[in-house]
C-alpha cells in the first residue's frame, strides 16, 4: 500500500515536472519540446539530472531551514553555550557517499549518450568520401548568414535549411570568417563551426513534430560572432522524404538564372548582373560564395534572416544593410539609387523555384549510381578545402 503511494508520488512529481518544463517555450524553438531523437535523448538526460538535483536542493533546503529555525539565538537564549562538535565520521561518510551514488546514476547515461551522439561514421564511406545514401549537409557560417550545401546532389542554398524528416541528417560544420555555433534548439544541441576544421554531428527531425509546427523550426547562432550575432537566425524546413527529394530535384533543375518576366524585374536583373552577381549566385551551385545564394529567394521565410519577407523590408535592407545588421559584409560593396533598388527587389521577388519542375527519379538514380561506384563526389574535406582556396582567390 505504502509502496504504491510512493510510486504514485514519484509519478506525480515527474508529471508535474514534465508539464511545467514543457508547458513553456515555443514548439519550434524550445529545447523542452524536442522534435527528434537527438533532442529527446538530451531532454531525458536533462530531466534525469533535474530530478536528481531537485532532490539535492530539497534535502539541503529542508536541513537548512530546520537548522536555522531551531537554532535562533532569540529562541536559544543569550546565555546558551553551544556544544563544540569537531566532526562526526558517520555523517561525513553519508554525505560523501550519497552524492557519489547520485553522480554515478547521472554519469552512466551521460557517457553513453556522448559516444552515441558523436557517431557520424555513416556519413562517410570507407574511403573517406561523402556517403550518398545518407543525408549530408555542409554548413558554412559567415558573418551573419548561413550557407547550406548538399554535396551528394550538388545543390547550394542559403539561410533556409531544408531537411528530410525521420532520418539522420548529418552536418559538416565550418566557420568561414569567425567562429559561430549551429543550433536548432528544438532538434537538439549545438555544435561550433570552427574556422580551423570541420565538425560533424547529426540531428533528426520527426515527421510528427514537423507537422505540428508547419514544418518550420528556428535555428540560431549560439557563439558571439560580432555585432549582429543576435540576428544570425535561420529557418529549418523539415519535409517528408519525397518532398525533400522533389525540392532537391527542383533546385537542380535551375541550370541557368531564371529570366525575369515583368519589365521592372528585367531591368532589375540587368542591374543585379552588374552589381550583385559578384557575390550572389542565382543558380543552386557555387558553394563558398561571398554572399548568400539567392536561387529561391522569393520562396524564403525571412529577409536577412529575421525580417518579415516582403518587398518593403527587402528594399530597406538593400538601401541600408548596416542599420538592420550592423557589421555585415554587404554594406558599401555596391552603389544603387533608390530607383535601382526598387528594380532589383522586383527581380529578387521573382526568384522562385517552381515546385515539381525537377526530375526526382533522375536524382534518385544518380544517388544510387554514385552509391555504387562512389567516384562521383569528392570527399567532404577536400571539397571544403577547394572552397577555401576559391575564397582566397576572390
Amino acid at each position, binding site marked *: 500500500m505504502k509502496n504504491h503511494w510512493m510510486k504514485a508520488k514519484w509519478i506525480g512529481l515527474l508529471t508535474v515536472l514534465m508539464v511545467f518544463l514543457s508547458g513553456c517555450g515555443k514548439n519550434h524553438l524550445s529545447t523542452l519540446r524536442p522534435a527528434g531523437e537527438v533532442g529527446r535523448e*538530451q531532454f531525458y538526460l536533462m530531466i534525469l539530472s533535474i530530478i536528481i*538535483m531537485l532532490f539535492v536542493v530539497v534535502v539541503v533546503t529542508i536541513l537548512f531551514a530546520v537548522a536555522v529555525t531551531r*537554532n535562533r*539565538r532569540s529562541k536559544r537564549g543569550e546565555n546558551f553555550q553551544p556544544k563544540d562538535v569537531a*566532526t562526526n565520521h558517520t555523517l561525513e561518510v553519508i554525505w560523501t557517499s550519497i552524492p557519489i551514488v547520485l*553522480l554515478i546514476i547521472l554519469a552512466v547515461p551521460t557517457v553513453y549518450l556522448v559516444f552515441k551522439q558523436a557517431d557520424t561514421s555513416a556519413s562517410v564511406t570507407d574511403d573517406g568520401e561523402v556517403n550518398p545514401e545518407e543525408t549530408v549537409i555542409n554548413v558554412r557560417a559567415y558573418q551573419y548568414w548561413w550557407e547550406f550545401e548538399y554535396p551528394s546532389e550538388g545543390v547550394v542554398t542559403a539561410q533556409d535549411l531544408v531537411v528530410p524528416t525521420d532520418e539522420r541528417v548529418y552536418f559538416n560544420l565550418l566557420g568561414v*570568417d569567425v567562429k559561430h555555433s549551429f543550433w536548432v534548439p528544438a532538434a537538439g544541441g549545438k555544435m561550433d563551426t*570552427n*574556422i*580551423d576544421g570541420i565538425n560533424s554531428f547529426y540531428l533528426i527531425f520527426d515527421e510528427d513534430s514537423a507537422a505540428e509546427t508547419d514544418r518550420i523550426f528556428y535555428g540560431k547562432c549560439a557563439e558571439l560572432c560580432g555585432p549582429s550575432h543576435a540576428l544570425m537566425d535561420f529557418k529549418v524546413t523539415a519535409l517528408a522524404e519525397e518532398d525533400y527529394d522533389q525540392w532537391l530535384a527542383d533546385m537542380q533543375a535551375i541550370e541557368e538564372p531564371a529570366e525575369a518576366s515583368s519589365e521592372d524585374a528585367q531591368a532589375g536583373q540587368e542591374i543585379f548582373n552588374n552589381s550583385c552577381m559578384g557575390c550572389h549566385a542565382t543558380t543552386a551551385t557555387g558553394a563558398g560564395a561571398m554572399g548568400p545564394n539567392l536561387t529561391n529567394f522569393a520562396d524564403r521565410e525571412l529577409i536577412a534572416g529575421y525580417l518579415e519577407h516582403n518587398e518593403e523590408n527587402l528594399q530597406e535592407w538593400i538601401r541600408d544593410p548596416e542599420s538592420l545588421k550592423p557589421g555585415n559584409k554587404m554594406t558599401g560593396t555596391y552603389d544603387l539609387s533608390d530607383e535601382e533598388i526598387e528594380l532589383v527587389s522586383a527581380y529578387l521577388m521573382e526568384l522562385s523555384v517552381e515546385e515539381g519542375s525537377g526530375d526526382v527519379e533522375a536524382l534518385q538514380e544518380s544517388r544510387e549510381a554514385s552509391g555504387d561506384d562512389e567516384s562521383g563526389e569528392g570527399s567532404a574535406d577536400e571539397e571544403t578545402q577547394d572552397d577555401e582556396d576559391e575564397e582566397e582567390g576572390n
Partner: protein
Amino acid sequence: MAQTSARKQGVGSVIWEYLTTVDHKKIAILYLIAGGFFFVLGGIEAMLIRIQLAVPNNDFLSAGLFNEMITMHGTTMIFLAAMPLLFAFMNATVPLQIGARDLAFPFLNSLGVWLFIFGGIFLNLSWFMGGAPDAGWTSYASLSIASPGHGIDFYALGLQISGAGTLITGINFATTIITMRAPGMTYMRMPLMTWTTLVASVLIVFAFPPLTIGIFLLIFDRMFGSNFFIVEAGGNTIIWEHLFWIFGHPEVYILILPAFGIFSEIFATFARKRLFGYSAMVFATVLIGFFGFMVWAHHMFTVGLGPTANAIFAVATMAIAVPTGIKIFNWIATIWGGSIEFTTPMLYALAFIPSFTMGGVTGIMQAAAPADYQYHDSYFIVAHFHYVIVGGVVFALLAGLHYYWPIMFNTMLNETLGKITFWFFFIGFHMTFLIQHFLGLWGMPRRVFTYLDGQGYNAANMISTIGAFLMAIAVIVLVVNIIITLVKNERVGMDPWGDGRTLEWSIPLPVPYYNFAQIPLVRGLDAYWVEKKEGNGKMMPSESLGDFHMPNNSILPVVMSLGLFIAAFGAMYFPDGKEWAIDAVSGLDTKPWALPVLMIGLAITFVSMGIRSWKDDLGYYVTKEEVERDLEELERGGK
C-alpha cells in the same frame, strides 16, 4: 606614535603615504577602494545591459555598444572587482589570522596592487579611446582577431598588466602562509579563511601563467604580426580556448574558495560554535583546488574535441560536486545546535547556502555533456554562473565587507541599513537570474543584444530586468551606509562582534601598524576562542617585548607599474598602418612614436627593477620603548 601623527598629516602626505605604503592594512584599503569602484562600474554596465534587454527589439544600446558592454561587464567584474575585493579581505585578515606583522614580501604586495590599478585603468580607458573590447570576456580568438580597432588590445594589455599583479600577489600570500605563521599556528590550526587563501594562491600560481601565455599570443598576433591564430598561416584558434579555460576554470575556484573561507568564519562566529568537520573542510578545499585543473574542457563540449575528451571531462566535472557537497553539509552541521545571531554578515552567509546550492546543481546538470549541448552558450549558462558568482562570491564580499569593516576602519556599518541592503539584494538576485534558466531552455542564446518579439522571451526578460533594479537599489543603500558610517566615525573597541574566534579579533582597534606588540602563541584551532574559554581572554605572547624589524615604504612599485602602463600604449599603436598588421588595424594611420613609447615604458620598469635590486632595503626597527608607549596608551584608553 605613527597613528596620531598620520592623522595630523595633510592631504598630500596622506596620498604619498598610500602611494608608497607596503603595509598590508593600507594595501587592503587600496584594494577595497579600487575594487569597489570597479564593482560599481561593472554594476552600471550590467544595468545598461538589462535595460537594453527589458523589451524586445530595443534600441537603447546599439549592437556594437552592447557587445562592448557585456565584454567590459564580465572582464571588470571578474578581474577588477571580485578578485581585488577578495584580495582586500585577504590582505586585511590573513597576516592577522596567522600572527604575522606583514606579508612575506611587503614590497611585492604594493607592486601587486599598483599593477592591478594601472591595468584596470588602462582597460577602462578604452571607453574614451576609440571603443571598448567587444569579443566577450572570453575573447575567443577568431573574433578577437577580426574585431576592428584597438578595443581588444586594451583587453589584452590591460589584463596582462593586472594579471601580473595577481600572480605576484598569489606568490606572496602562498609564501606568507607557509613561512610567517606564529608559533603554535600549525597548518591544521589555521582558520579556514587562511586555508582557502593558501589554496587559492596556489591556484593563481598555476592558473595565471597559461592566461599570460594566451594573452601574449593574442598580443603578438594583434600587435606584432605573428600567426598563432591566423588559420591561413597555419595558426589554430582552439589553442586560445584551451589556454583561456585552463586558466578560466581554476579562476572560478580562485574566486569561490576565499568566499568559502569568509563564510566559514562567519558561520562559526555567529553560531558561537566551532566549524563542523574542520579537517574535512580543509581536505575538500584542497581537493576542489586539485580537481579545478582537470575540468577546463567542460567549457568546450561543443567545440568538437571528440567523445572521449567530452566523456572524461564530463565525469571529472561531476566529481567536483562531492567535495563541494561536503562543504555545504558541514556548514549546515555547524549551525545545527548552535546559537544563530542574525547579523548582516550572517544573513548573507545563510542566504548563500540555498543560493549557491542551486548554482552548484545546475553546474552538475551542465556536466552531463549531451544535455550541455543544449545549455551551452544559452541563457541557462548566464543564470548558472551568476548563481555561483553572485550567490557565492558577491554574497561573500558583501558579508565580508560588513564583517571585517571594523578591522579595516575601526567603525561598524549600520546593521539596519545592512539588512535592508541584504533583502533587496537577495530578492533582486533570485528575481534576475532564476528566470534566466528558463530563457535558456526556451532557446535564447546568450550575448544577444536583442531578441525578436513573438519568441516567448518578453515577460521573462522584463522580470529579470526588474530584479536587476532591486539589486541596484541594494548597492545604493550600501553606498549610503558606507558614507554615513565614515562620516559618523563611531569608534569601536576590540572584538566588536563579541564572538570573535580567530587571532584577528584579539588585536586592539585600530590595529597598530606593526599588528602585534608581541607575536602570540597559538594553542589551538580558533586561537582567540581557546583563550576566551580556557585562558584569561588574552593571547599569550610567544616572545618577550623587544625591538623588531619592519619594511620601508617605497614609491618604486608605482613607478614600475606606470612604466608598463606607458609601454602598453606603445605596443598598442605599434602595428597601426603596418603592412604586416592584421586587417583590424592595418588601415589606420601609422604612429611613428609608438616604438619609442614602448621602449621608454619598458625602460622605466626595468630600471626600477634594477634600482630595487641594487639598493639595500634593510627596513627599520620599531623600538621596545615605542611599543611600550603604545601599550600604555591603550591601557589608559581602556580605563
